[in-house]
Each structure stands twice: as C-alpha cells, then as structure tokens.
C-alpha cells in the first residue's frame, strides 16, 4: 500500500472501500475533548435494539425503534442543555446535506444537530441544476460519498429517492423529505413535543389538518403516532383527504368543528400551493373559513389542547396569529426538538449494524 497523503503512515489512511460505519482508528470522543478543551464528558450508552443504518421512513419502523429514537432524543437534548451546548459525541464524522429542493429550516436543523455533537457538515444544494447538466441524483450522491462522508441527508421532490440511495451508498442515509412520501424526523419531532407535554402518546387523539394528499409530514406523523398508540384523524377538504385512508385504519374527517372537542393535539399542515396542478378547493378564502384555526374555534377545544404546525406557517390561511402565538401553541418548541431528534438519528445510525437475524441491512 503506498503512503497516504502528506506522508502519513499507511495504517492511518482510511481505505476507500472501508464502510464509514467502522469505528475510527482513534476514539473520536477523546480526540475532540483534547482538541476542543470541553469539560469531561461521558457518552451515553448505546441502546440495545437499534440496528438500522438508514432513517428512510416511519412506516417501516417498529414501535420499539420509534421509542428508542424519542428516548435518545430526550437524553441528548438534556445532555446538550436543551440543544444549546456542544458535546463531543461524533467528532471526526461528517454530514452532507444533499438537498434537491429548497429548504432552510430542515437543513439548518440537521447541520446544527451534527455540530452540537461535534461533527462537521458540508452543503450541497442542487435544485434542478445537476438534472439540467444530465447528472442523476444517484451520481450526485455517489460523488459526495466519495468525499468521505458518514451521513447523507437528502431531500428530493420524488418519493423513494432516499430508499434508492440507501441501496447505492455505503454511508448512512437520512430522509429529510421525499416528495409527498415521508419526512421521518419531522414526524419524530412532533411526537417528541407531544410526549414532553403529555408524557405519553398512547390513547391520545391527534388531528392532522390540511393538505394530507401532498404532505410528507402527515404521512410520517400518521404511521409514527399510530404505532405508539395514538388515534389519528386526518381532516381537510375531500379533494385533499382520500377516503382510502380509512381502509388503512385512519379516521377521515372533513368538518374541523365537529372533531375539535375530541382532539388532544392539532397539527396544522401548510397548504402547499406550489404542488397543485389545479386548485383542489375553490379559494383560499373558503379554505380559511372551513379549516383555519382561530380564536372562535379554540373555544370549542379541550382545555389542554396542543397546537402544532410543521411550518412554515401561512398566517391567516391555516392558523391565525392569536392561535399561533397563543398559550396553547408549541410551534417553537417543535423547532428545538427538531435538533434533538436529528442528533438522536445521527448518533444511532452510525452505530447501526447489519440486522442481527436476517444478516441484511434495512434495505
């Protein structure tokens, strides 16, 4: 084997073929402590029962796996003083944000999560540009992997792209939104927020209100909440809430006022005007009249109802300012919890192994 770059001893050069999952030659934790001068830190125990290398969707996870993610997020949130401090848990690792769709919130949240754990981040935006150059998203991702990254965080307008990448890449793949399919970390952060306020998810009634048809947030919430025992209502105009959801075991509603007295949590989804080929309801005016959460509707709700929104919010369309900024709103806590669940996902995935039984990874 030839000498590595800068005359490093061959033993210290990481061969290209090595899976990035294998532990670093030096313990990354100790290295970071020495170099960053942070106080003594004892890393948390890796939870038993986690083996996945990719976080692609919540539909495919078990209740136990989702609970591990939420518990770990809670632990890391506390260890980082509410997601504000840095801990040297993942020093020497690198996260690549590979976004084929515009995003600031989710991308920054992933970056901050990585940085809070001592990892480096690198950004690739490719809203259409690589496609116009004739490169497929798979080639783009392989190029980035070849730069030696441990996680690829991807957002793409087509459903299933993270699943396709997971088949092609050696590194960990995190889905940050694939079309209308799933947005698993958003689902997790919503669940974590509810759990922090209610102590549990089991037995709660959660309504997802708005454009269910085009919402990846809705799908991730639906699967995740149901696996942990919540009753899920999907509510919105009939053109955006398919009756087929009932075949899959969810309650379908079109009248928000009717369901309000039964709900413990309302998650108000944004109307994604940019995704419509033709408008699925007559006017924004009519939509707001039927589905906007406002002061009048708040009075129909239970005492301790939680008002959530994945954002960005359209004030006056799905939510009025008095509700968004009111005492029941936990919208900003959701944002903080986003960093917590992303820290948990990053940490768990790099410890992922092949499946203990099947011998295959999760793809």
């Amino acid at each position, binding site marked *: 084997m030839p000498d590595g770059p800068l005359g490093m001893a061959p033993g210290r050069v990481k061969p290209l073929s090595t899976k990035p999952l294998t532990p670093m030659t030096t313990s990354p934790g100790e290295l970071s402590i020495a170099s960053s001068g942070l106080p003594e830190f004892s890393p948390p125990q890796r939870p038993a029962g986690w083996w996945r290398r990719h976080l692609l969707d919540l*539909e495919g996870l078990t209740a136990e796996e989702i609970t591990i993610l939420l518990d770990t997020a809670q632990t890391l949130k506390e260890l980082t003083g509410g997601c504000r401090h840095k801990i040297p848990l993942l020093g020497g690792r690198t996260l690549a944000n590979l976004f084929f769709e515009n995003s600031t919130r989710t991308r920054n949240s992933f970056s901050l999560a990585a940085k809070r754990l001592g990892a480096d981040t690198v950004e690739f935006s490719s809203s259409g540009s690589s*496609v116009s150059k004739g490169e*497929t*998203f*798979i080639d783009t991702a392989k190029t980035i992997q070849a730069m030696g990254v441990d996680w690829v965080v991807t957002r*793409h*307008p*087509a*459903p*299933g*792209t993270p*699943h*396709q990448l997971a088949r092609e890449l050696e590194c960990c793949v995190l889905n940050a939104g*694939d*079309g*209308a*399919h*799933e947005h698993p970390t958003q689902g997790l952060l919503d669940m974590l927020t509810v759990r922090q306020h209610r102590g549990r998810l089991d037995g709660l009634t959660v309504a997802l209100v708005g454009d269910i048809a*085009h919402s*990846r947030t809705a*799908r991730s919430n639906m699967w995740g909440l149901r696996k942990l025992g919540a009753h899920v209502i999907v509510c919105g105009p009939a053109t955006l809430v*398919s009756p*087929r*959801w009932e*075949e*899959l075991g969810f309650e379908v509603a079109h009248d928000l006022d009717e369901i309000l007295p039964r709900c413990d949590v309302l998650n108000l989804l944004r109307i994604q005007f940019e995704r419509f*080929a033709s408008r699925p309801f007559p006017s924004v005016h009519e939509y707001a009249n039927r589905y906007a959460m406002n002061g009048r509707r708040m009075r129909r709700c239970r005492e301790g109802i939680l008002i959530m929104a994945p954002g960005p919010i359209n004030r006056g369309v799905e939510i009025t300012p008095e509700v968004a900024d009111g005492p029941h709103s936990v919208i900003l806590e959701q944002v903080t919890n986003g960093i917590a669940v992303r820290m948990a996902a990053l940490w768990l995935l790099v410890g992922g192994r092949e499946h203990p039984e099947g011998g295959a990874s999760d793809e």
Partner: protein
Amino acid sequence: MSELTPILIEGGRLISPTDGLDRPGRLLLHRGRIESIDPADDDLPEYCHRVDAGGCLVTPGLVDLGAEFREPGHEEDETIVTGGAAALAGGFTTVLCLGNCDPPVDTPAGVELIARIAASAAGPRVRVIACLSQGRRGEQMAELGLLVQAGAVAFSDSPRPVGNSALLKRALDYCRMFDIPIFDRPVDPDLVDRGVMHDGRVSLRLGLSGLPTEAEDLAVARDVRLAEATGGRLHVGPISTMGSIDLLRWVKSRGIFVTASVCPHNLGQSDEMLASFDARFKVHPPLRSPRHVEMLCQAVADGTIDAIQSGHMPRAREKKMNDLNQAPFGAAALETALPVVATRMVRSGAMSWSDLILRMSTRPAQIAGLDAGTLRLGAPADVAVIDPEEAWTVEPERFFSSCQSSPHAGEKVWGRVVYTIVGGEIRFTRRPALDHLAIGS
C-alpha cells in the same frame, strides 16, 4: 427462399389453434412454407435439417401487436437489430413495431426505412404501426393512404393516447377504405397528469401521484362508441382495468367488432411492487391492484381480451436509473412475455398452451391482418419450438435487448423458446449447432 435446406421438426407436440392441431406430430418446412404435417419417410426431401423437438411444443411463431424498436432516433434504447434479436429469443417471428421514433414514423419514407433495416437484419418479420397523426401531435391525420401503400399494417400514436375524439372518429371512418386497424392506448390525458403508478391504496401510502383506472375506462368507453358509430376497425390496448373489461363484454355482446390486448406484466404483478421505489416497476400500463390483475387473467382466459402483446418499451439504463418521477415508463419484455404468461396462466391451469398460442400468435395475426399465427399447409414457415417445462430465472443482464430493465428480474419462470424459425430458416436456437446437422433422409 428455395435454396434453404428443408427442416423436419420431429418428436414434438404440434399446436395450432385454428387448425385444430394439438397432438404429437412432425412438421416439414420447405421453400419457406409449411410443406406437410406428418410426412411419410418416403416423401421427405433428399436432404433436410432434423430438429429434435422431443418434449417440446411446435407452434406458430408468436406475433407481437406492439413493440418499440426505437430506431431511428433513440438507438440508445434499442435498435431494430437488438430488438429483433430479443424478439427471436422470445419466440416472436413477427413484430409490429411502433412509430414513436424520432422523427416519428408518419411518412412512407419512415416506413420504408424500418422495413429496409429489418430486411437486412435476419431477425423476425418487422411490420410497422405508423403514426395516426402528423408528428404524433394528435391534431391532423397523417397520410394514411400513402402509409398503407408503403407497408404500414396499423395506425397508432401509442403509447400516447389519441386525446382528440374528433381525430379518432375521422381516422376510424377514413381507414374503412383500407381495412386497416387503428390501435389506441386508451387513456384520458386530462386524468393522468404527472401520474407515476396505479392510483390506489399503495400510491396513497407512498405519496406517488396516481394513474386512475377511470382514465382508461373513459377512453375505452369513448373508443368503442366511436368504433360502433363509424364501423371502423379498432383495437384497444394494452388495457389494464376491470372497467375496460366490463365495457368490452358489453361491446362484444352487442356485436360491435372491437379487439383488445393486455401486457404480460399486468397479468402477474401488482402495484405493491412499487413499494420498493425501484424504477423497473414503472411500466406501461402501470401495475394495477391485485383485484384488477385477477380480473385481467380471467378476461384473457375467457376470451374477452383477444390478445397478449409484449409491451416491449425499452429504455436505456441511464434513463431508468433515476427517481420515480424522472425515470421513463418502460421495460424490456420480448424475452419474458411467453414464460411470464406460461407461468401465470398455463402453469396455474387458467388456460391451455393452445389458448396461449391463440392469444399470442393466432389472434394477433388476425387483428393485424397478417398471414401468420398458423401451421396451415402452405402458410409461411414461421415456427417456434418451446420447451414448456424448462424452469429458469429472469436475468435481464443476459437479455439480447439493449434494455436491461425488467419488472420480472429475479423471477422464476417456466417455459423457454428453443428454436425460432422465420420463413423456414432457423434464426435462433439455444441448442448447440450440432443438434440440427443436415442429414440424408
């Protein structure tokens, strides 16, 4: 053709639905034609190839009602030579190739070019389905009369549907002069905007945009009414929905002459396959829900659906290697059509081998108005020899087609083509050459 050595196929089971043939026998091919069935040894020519068809079926070569060969213009997907080789390996002796090339085959010169390339390729007989409309734009009729003179055997803008009802009606009416069928891939374009897969419970879960069944049902309803109104010859296909089947039953009970076809992939696989997010399952027509699959199989078995067409829509690897929105519809199908249908329909007991030959050879030939699909004495010697028991696994990387994307990759199937004979000439065999040495009689 007279310089060809005669071929004696012996030891096999002869099947030809319209000739009442389904029994052991031997078949002599001479001067490019079916010379005789069960010839006496004394009547054999002085020299002939003897083909040992022991344990095999000897059938008319398959006739495909619509494959894409992509040449000229899209040779990265397929050429007439590679597509022809795939057809032979799949037992097809005649292929109707679609005119969705670049430029579209909407002129006599386009038809002649394909015919000329095919003639020098030693592949199957290639007949052209010319474009119905100028530039496949769905506005004005192409020069249909001149295209017929140049050799076109059918007209279609497929896989693009004819969205313009006035155009379809006019063309059906006009084509009565030539007794040439119009093939429509029935889809209402307004209802399939950006759809990727069957619109149903699975697409809902996966967040993929749907191709609703009513888009096909509406188009079939329109098509058959226009066929009735004009008396023109219409073939709808490939179809994929229960609604289409209901309409066809209604139409046939009224004595309206309309034919229909289905693709093998719609007889076996369902939309659940898309949960893998693998673009090889993005095919045309889309994989439907299990209920549709079951009804399509029934309709093939009971004859409501006349024919099975390969649905060969080759697309280059670099195009299929993409996300599900970007990747084009399509897959290589010529080499898997027969075994997939045999496995799904014959092995399951839903129909006989004779029925399969009827649906994949005899009826397609009748629909296209070709002298094929039969072992009648004097007919062109287009013959397939099929081993019905050979079990094998579909490995697209070994396809003759340039396209190696298949929804059937990795599937275990039964039935394999051993010889394909076109015009009395062995153009494909899986056996070593020694097996059919010329010997004296």
